[in-house]
């Protein structure tokens, strides 16, 4: 699904971490686009590379230990090739970031107002009064009651939900075109989570920003995303619109994941368990279907030697051909495992 207003275009991105003298790719050949007004969710289990992808986009990785290859095109500039100084002009101004843990993302010794002001000082030429005004406006926009009082408070005086609102206020302070949200609601209670997600959608509608939402919670994805990329072992294994992915999942991994959610109406049924564990970065086989070891009852001939993403219907991509012959262990036609 190529939108005409493409904001971000990631092409063949490899992000590798150095261990000893070799680099191990945690993000392995990822290509993605993000359109205006779009919420793109990236889902996967821990260790699949979704957060590494996020830090690559905002350039927050350790330059000495990380190697980035490929292109991250934003307004005809390649973010992957930018120096730290160049990136400082983009980060915060045009790309905002929301982190998982709002307490460790805020400076405990600075007042809320000052922290929001920081990026305004760096990126804009507003006068002191204008900045103050903007801070109150932002706090108001993210639904914080009594902004002038909160602006003078410290992070520890706020609740978790309020802190996350402050983080969002910082992220949107310069009206960025892209917001990267890494597990923004994982540390919050469900009621607060619902409020924060509603707030994100509302802000996105107002500003028209594109949001990359990184999460492991399929419920959150279903509630807010427009398009979903499922990652496994550093690769995107399925990419589709949210309706398509949830009603018609294809890749064995996606299907297995859906079957392991304890749903409201699953009650006494057995949950599906994916055999084995997520392979570690060091031992990851770099050829063949990476999910193959976890579905051993599927014959090797069903997999591709060098799995590619196939577009099976418009905007719906699936990696490897093994989905065609996939069945759950113990299902009809299946051998018991």
């Amino acid at each position, binding site marked *: 699904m190529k939108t005409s207003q493409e904001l971000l275009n990631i092409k063949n991105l490899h992000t590798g971490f150095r261990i000893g003298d070799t680099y191990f790719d945690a993000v392995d050949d990822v290509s993605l686009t993000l359109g205006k007004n779009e919420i793109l969710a990236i889902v996967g289990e821990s260790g699949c590379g979704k957060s590494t992808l996020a830090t690559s986009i905002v350039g927050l990785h350790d330059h000495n230990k990380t190697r980035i290859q490929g292109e991250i095109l934003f307004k005809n500039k390649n973010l992957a090739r930018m120096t730290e100084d160049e990136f400082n002009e983009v980060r915060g101004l045009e790309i905002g970031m929301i982190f998982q843990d709002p307490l460790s993302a805020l400076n405990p010794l600075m007042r809320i107002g000052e922290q929001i002001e920081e990026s305004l000082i760096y990126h804009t030429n507003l006068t002191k009064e204008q900045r103050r005004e903007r801070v109150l406006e932002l706090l108001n926009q993210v639904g914080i009651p009594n902004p002038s009082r909160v602006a003078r408070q410290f992070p520890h005086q706020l609740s978790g939900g309020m802190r996350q609102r402050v983080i969002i206020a910082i992220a949107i302070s310069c009206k960025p075109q892209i917001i990267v949200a890494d597990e923004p609601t994982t540390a919050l209670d*469900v009621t607060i989570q619902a409020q924060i997600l509603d707030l994100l959608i509302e802000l996105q509608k107002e500003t028209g920003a594109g949001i990359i939402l990184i999460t492991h919670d399929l419920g959150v994805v279903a*509630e807010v*995303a427009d398009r979903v990329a499922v990652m496994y072992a550093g690769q995107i294994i399925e990419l589709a619109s949210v309706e398509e992915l949830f009603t018609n999942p294809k890749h064995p991994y996606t299907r297995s994941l859906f079957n392991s959610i*304890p749903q409201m109406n699953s*009650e006494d049924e057995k949950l599906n*368990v994916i055999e084995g564990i997520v392979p570690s970065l060091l031992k990851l086989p770099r050829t063949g279907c990476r999910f193959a070891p976890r579905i051993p009852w599927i014959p090797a001939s069903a997999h591709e030697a060098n799995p590619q993403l196939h577009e099976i219907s418009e905007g719906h991509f699936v990696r490897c051909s093994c989905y065609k012959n996939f069945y759950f262990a113990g299902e009809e036609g299946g051998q018991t495992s």
Partner: protein
Amino acid sequence: MSFMQINDLKVHYPIRGGFFNRIVDHVYAVDGVTMELERGKAYGLVGESGCGKSTTGKSIVGLEKISSGSIIYEGENVTNRRRDRSSSFNRDIQMIFQDSTSAMNPRKRVKDILAEPIRNFLNLTPQEESKKISELLEIVGMPEDAKIKYPHEFSGGQKQRLGIARAMATNPKLIIADEPVSALDLSVQAQVLNFMKDIQNEYGLSYLFISHDLGVVKHMCDYINIMYKGRFVETGTRHDIYNNPQHIYTKRLLSAIPDVTPVGREERKRERIEVEKHYQQEQAKYFDENGRVFDLSPISTTHFVATASSIALVKEGI
């Protein structure tokens, strides 16, 4: 027939301050919790962070001092003997913790970790002990060679299973599971939940399942207690709670859970905002003048709701 009754359990933490650091007030972490536990059933304890659900669990096993109330275990009052080794209570009630990494001594091997409750309670010879540990590992589906490994050599799901094995060592009657799967990935979570259900059926265990994840609780539990500010706002079977929520707080909690179908999400959002608005308006009616939750009153034989008598409830056949 219930084997354990918890009556009006209260845990209050003192707030010190003022002159000479006197006690100026209390935090009412758990403020009057009453429960009856039956053999082979799973009970859910659900609430937001800070509502007192973990404190309730900890105070039952004796990790937290009880301010008032009593715990009756098989007809015997064990309130003040919860950590008494001569009492069978200590052996029969075990706990599984949320973060299995920090719940195990990193310098001990698995066999010593699992042997701890055995040495405390069972008095076995070294050979018997070793056999028992092998049995435990088999129950949780781990290989024999896990014995000589250290906790850091295992993945999160495996560690959580070791935590369960340790809790199983003394053949307990009740396992208190404090967020046992919230740190795990979906597929691993499924593995641990399936496994907990299996051993429940096999050994007739009871669970007190503490969680904020309503999907998990619904999957696991027969009875669900919704907790808020240290008190129960609604208790009942899972069908009572999910199909006929009565308390405004329960409704709000249920409406906030994300559904795994994108279809109809706009509608759900509108509904959620409606419920939230209703909650803000009607809140006062559901809590007394001090913001405390009312006492529970029955609306059916299994379903109890905390309300003032002024609010008419939909009675279910009584």
